[in-house]
């Protein structure tokens, strides 16, 4: 009999990893994406601290990750694939058909959604995927449930022979709440794959049968949900009751602590009998949910005249204030908060905004300074460099999805009959994710534009993870580093060149040459991410004797450069604490007013 474990303060991502570790998950694959990125590193840490043999990898994209996991499942391993919400779009192809094939070892698909777009290009509600594919879905509300539901998901997956979707959101993934959990792992033997073509070869004849099997399984899962503690009723007072899941449930408990609530932990398939029994007990039942009216529409379709929050709340993150506002609009007064939140409050107008910016010494800055000068149309992609769309660089003109920039540049060139030559910028990690087929397509189809691979040896925006270009795996093992130049040549690019990001003149010369070339050209701009590789050298300083206040340096948008008022003039200054010594501003200055701080004894502040 072990003693009661102490509570741990875990993020939702750490808690999911703990649940998977406990369940004996032995293979996990993912592509990093906020807010899901910490799940695999956390899984590795649990195994390092408390034992267990778990293979974890950064796959090149989410589709590949899910397919790797599906192979592991066929071999009998408990396995998971983790991704951000838009990653499930990439992985949708295997996701839908895996619902038909089912599993051997439990298969957990983790989707971390981003209501409110904290760090994403859209705020799609991936609960709809569960219903569309016919894959059961669990929605934890806090870290304790994230841990418990992850463990449960493996059991459900095996019991009902279907993958299970664990749907997180930013506020679940990136909040810390107490978790009480045992540190015991159920190690499982992986027996290996044995042929079962009726189940795993999805030709039409087999797939038709498996589709029917899936429908029967889902009906069984729904009946399980009628009884299982994963769904529960919080008894309360009053004749107005609520149905909620995930974060919306937490907010509701805060705002209306005494109201009766049906708390759904499994939001697909819905427990029809449980919902029916609950709804008929009350005069009015309101569904409270974040983003799409997913529960509302399904419960209405079951024939229950439930109510919901005003439709405008479907956009953006649900917060305590917005919930209070929404409830008041439908005639329900919140009782739980003192003082009641004032929905009219907001940040004062007119304050300078502080948007995220490229870091001091960022390997991308010089490239965008050159692109701005060349006045070309720049098709962008997903990564830190998307920030170059903001002033003062303002040299990135599209951002759609992973790998889109290359294909968009191809489309522009073809639609204009070659008159407009765009530059497609794409990061190294994004290029391996989905840029490779895009470049192959463009070269094959005679695209006439420039692909500029920004190779900073890092999946930087999500925290500096490794990828095939870094030559290191998630487990820290050495691997073969992808050679971008040789790959581009092998794909058939006639002009391939490499330029160092430390030399803006070389970048400009290279890009001009590439733009003058007829046909697809590939330029690889190489320089280490200073954040990931901790690149930092002597800071620079500005010599006021030589400075003419032209502000060319400021136009680089470097956070280390600012203005300081002295003698009635606004002087550009370099904050020595922020400057990492890349020297780009010194190269930009036409008057030689910027040099190493200790060289001119300058005015570093």
């Amino acid at each position: 009999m072990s003693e009661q474990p102490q509570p741990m303060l875990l993020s939702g991502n750490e808690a999911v990893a703990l649940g998977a570790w406990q369940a004996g998950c032995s293979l996990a694959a993912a592509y990093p994406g906020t807010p899901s990125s910490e799940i695999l590193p956390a899984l590795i840490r649990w195994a390092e601290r408390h034992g267990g043999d778990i293979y974890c990898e950064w796959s090149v994209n989410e589709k590949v990750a899910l397919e790797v996991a599906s192979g592991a499942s066929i071999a009998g391993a408990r396995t998971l694939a983790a991704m951000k919400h838009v990653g499930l779009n990439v992985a949708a192809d295997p996701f839908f058909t895996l619902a038909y094939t089912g599993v051997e070892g439990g298969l957990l698909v983790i989707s971390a959604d981003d209501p409110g777009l904290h760090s994403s290009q859209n705020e799609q509600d991936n609960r709809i995927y569960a219903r569309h594919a016919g894959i059961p879905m669990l929605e934890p509300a806090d870290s304790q449930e994230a841990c418990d539901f992850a463990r449960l998901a493996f059991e459900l997956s095996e019991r009902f022979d279907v993958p299970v979707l664990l749907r997180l959101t930013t506020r679940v993934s990136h909040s810390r709440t107490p978790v009480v959990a045992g540190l015991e792992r159920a190690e499982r033997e992986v027996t290996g794959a044995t042929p079962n073509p009726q189940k795993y070869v999805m030709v039409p004849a087999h797939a038709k049968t498996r589709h029917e099997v899936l429908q029967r399984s889902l009906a069984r899962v729904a009946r399980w949900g009628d009884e299982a503690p994963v769904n529960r009723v919080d008894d309360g007072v009053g004749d107005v009751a609520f149905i909620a899941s995930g974060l919306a449930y937490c907010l509701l408990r805060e705002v209306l602590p005494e109201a009766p609530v049906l708390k759904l932990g499994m939001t697909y398939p819905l427990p029809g009998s449980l919902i029916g029994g609950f709804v008929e007990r009350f005069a009015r039942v309101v569904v409270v949910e974040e983003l799409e009216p997913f529960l509302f529409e399904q419960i209405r379709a079951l024939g229950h005249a439930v109510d919901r929050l005003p439709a405008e709340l479907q956009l953006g993150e649900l917060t305590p204030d917005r919930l209070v506002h929404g409830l008041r609009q439908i005639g329900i007064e919140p009782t739980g908060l003192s003082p009641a939140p004032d929905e009219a409050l907001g940040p004062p107008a007119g304050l300078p905004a502080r948007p995220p910016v490229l870091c001091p010494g960022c390997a991308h800055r010089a490239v965008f300074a050159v692109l701005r000068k060349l006045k070309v149309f720049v098709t962008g992609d997903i990564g830190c460099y998307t920030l170059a769309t903001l002033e003062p660089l303002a040299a990135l003109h599209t951002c759609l999805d992973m790998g889109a920039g290359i294909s968009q540049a191809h489309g522009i060139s073809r639609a204009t009959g070659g008159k407009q030559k765009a530059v497609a910028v794409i990061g190294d990690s994004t290029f391996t994710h989905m840029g490779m087929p895009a470049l192959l397509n463009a070269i094959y189809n005679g695209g006439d534009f420039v692909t500029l691979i920004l190779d900073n040896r890092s999946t930087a925006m999500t925290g500096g993870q490794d990828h095939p270009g870094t030559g290191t795996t998630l487990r820290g093992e050495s691997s073969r580093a992808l050679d971008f130049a040789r790959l581009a040549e092998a794909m058939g690019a006639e002009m391939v060149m490499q330029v160092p990001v430390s030399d803006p003149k070389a970048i400009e010369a290279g890009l001009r040459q590439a733009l003058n070339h007829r046909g697809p050209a590939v330029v690889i701009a190489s320089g280490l991410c200073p954040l990931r590789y901790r690149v930092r050298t002597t800071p620079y300083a500005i010599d006021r004797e030589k400075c003419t206040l032209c502000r060319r340096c400021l136009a680089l948008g470097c956070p280390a450069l600012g203005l300081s008022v002295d003698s009635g003039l606004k002087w550009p200054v370099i904050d020595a604490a922020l400057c990492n010594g890349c020297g780009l501003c010194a190269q930009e200055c036409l008057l030689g007013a910027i040099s190493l701080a200790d060289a001119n004894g300058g005015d570093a502040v």
Partner: protein
Amino acid sequence: MANVLFAGVGGQGVVTASDLLAHAALRAGWNVKKAETHGMAQRGGSVVTHVRVSADQPVHSRLIPHGCADYLIALELLEGVRTLWMLAPGGDSFGIDVPHAHWHTVVALQPGTVIFEAKSGPYQPLLPEEKAPWAPVEGAAGVDVYLRQIESLFPTG
């Protein structure tokens, strides 16, 4: 219930600071929830974290409702101004702004006091000449006497 809002800029340690408080609350056996900002946060953008703690009540929402923050710990002036409106009306000030290059010491008048000190710029260990010449070195004999002298400057009760 106490709602503590931390505000600052990516890279300053806003998340770390709020972690310290949340862990302290957990260790004291309190209920606690904390919401962080990740991702864009390390690119120099505004960062806000919410910590909600209570010794006796359940903590449900991890976000502090508008106008309900009991404490605001701003690691940077502009971010402090930007989040000031989140403070609940009627609270006391528990913060003090010590200008750069001013000798100061901290004495806890009550056991269990938590003090959070934020400095601008990168971490630099104190140099010997930055320490007040009249104050005893940490851990040395005479520290108790020195602290009691300071305590006696405060009204008791």
